[in-house]
């Protein structure tokens, strides 16, 4: 139910350098502002791009966040595949795997 807040946090981290800095300086105080489950907290703290993908985080948000976390492109794609292996199908949103990827 709190996927909305996972995505809102990532949205703000992606676009607002001051939120990013606060997150780097005192991560837990930033996280306290959002209504997040234990699983979501684990996914964000790691960060676990594969789990965030399976939770249903919007792909554009997650792609930019993975770049912010310095994921190399192939590693980012692989992280989503690994997430599916470890956690099962995407649980929400528009970015579920449909098959047929070429890269």
């Amino acid at each position, binding site marked *: 139910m709190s996927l909305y807040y996972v995505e*809102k946090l990532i*949205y703000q981290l992606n*676009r607002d350098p001051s939120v990013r800095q606060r997150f780097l300086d005192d991560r837990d105080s930033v996280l306290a502002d959002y209504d997040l489950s234990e699983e979501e907290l684990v996914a964000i703290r790691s960060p676990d791009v594969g789990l965030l993908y399976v939770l249903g985080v*919007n792909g554009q948000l997650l792609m930019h966040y993975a*770049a912010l976390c310095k994921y190399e492109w192939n590693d980012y794609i692989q992280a989503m595949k690994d997430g599916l292996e470890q956690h099962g199908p995407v649980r929400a949103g528009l970015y579920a*795997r*449909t098959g047929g*990827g070429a890269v």
Partner: protein
Amino acid sequence: MTLVFAGACSHAPGITGRADRADKQVRDEFYANFDRLAAAIREAGAEALVVIAAEHFANFFRNNMPSCAIGMAEYYTGPIEDEEWLGIKKTRVPGNVDLSKRLIQRVMQDVDISFAEEMQFDHGVSVPLHFLTPEYDLDVVPIIFNCQAPPLMPLHRVYAFGQALRKAIDAVPEKIAVVCTGGISHWPATPDSGKINEDFDREFLEHFVSNDREALTSYSDSEIYDRAGQGGFEIRTYVALAGLCEGAQGELWFYAPIPIFAVGCTIASMGVEPVASSAPAGGS
């Protein structure tokens, strides 16, 4: 008539961010058509560039998501993405508050929109500008459609927006070029990245260049999702441009699926005047 040029292009982040991983010959032909588009804008004497683009959560979230927002800022910043990842340096792009305001006021006579006095660009605008105005020396008016968070503006309303924008542009003295930028079928930001439905793309582009209003606005979001993926929702940008140039016809300059760019890469122009033999489609 102050609309002096209309065109379309892709904007996928891989176009700049993963440039070295594409087939060089195809990539360079694509880039050459970006250069041709840039030259056409200059040769038309454009004094400002309107960019009809897709929001990727650079500006708006679902606590307050406009279906369509027009920028009304002195300048815009971006890209928001990691510079190295996107291959584009962060910069300021000049806006034009007065021009934006006049366009917005006129558009509002016909359709409901939002405006933003502060806006950041993501790859959706930054990649096209990287090629079209690399010196960032042309005033830009960004128009951002929500293509990410349903419910989305229905396509017939998007077309009507384009018609309203045309009235607005033709009411100002400045010479205006308009470029729409979106993907057609693509499944970006998933493990299926690189998947492209070329049949859908070519069908849609045929409707686009013939400015077939009925066909362009008949797609449902469920059909788009099934055939063109969530990335296909960005056809809104093309439909808006078709409405802008109702009755005119376009020309496809370049189309090729480039999987590492995650999209069927497209460059096209659209006539700014109705063709003599073509009555406005849709009967109105």
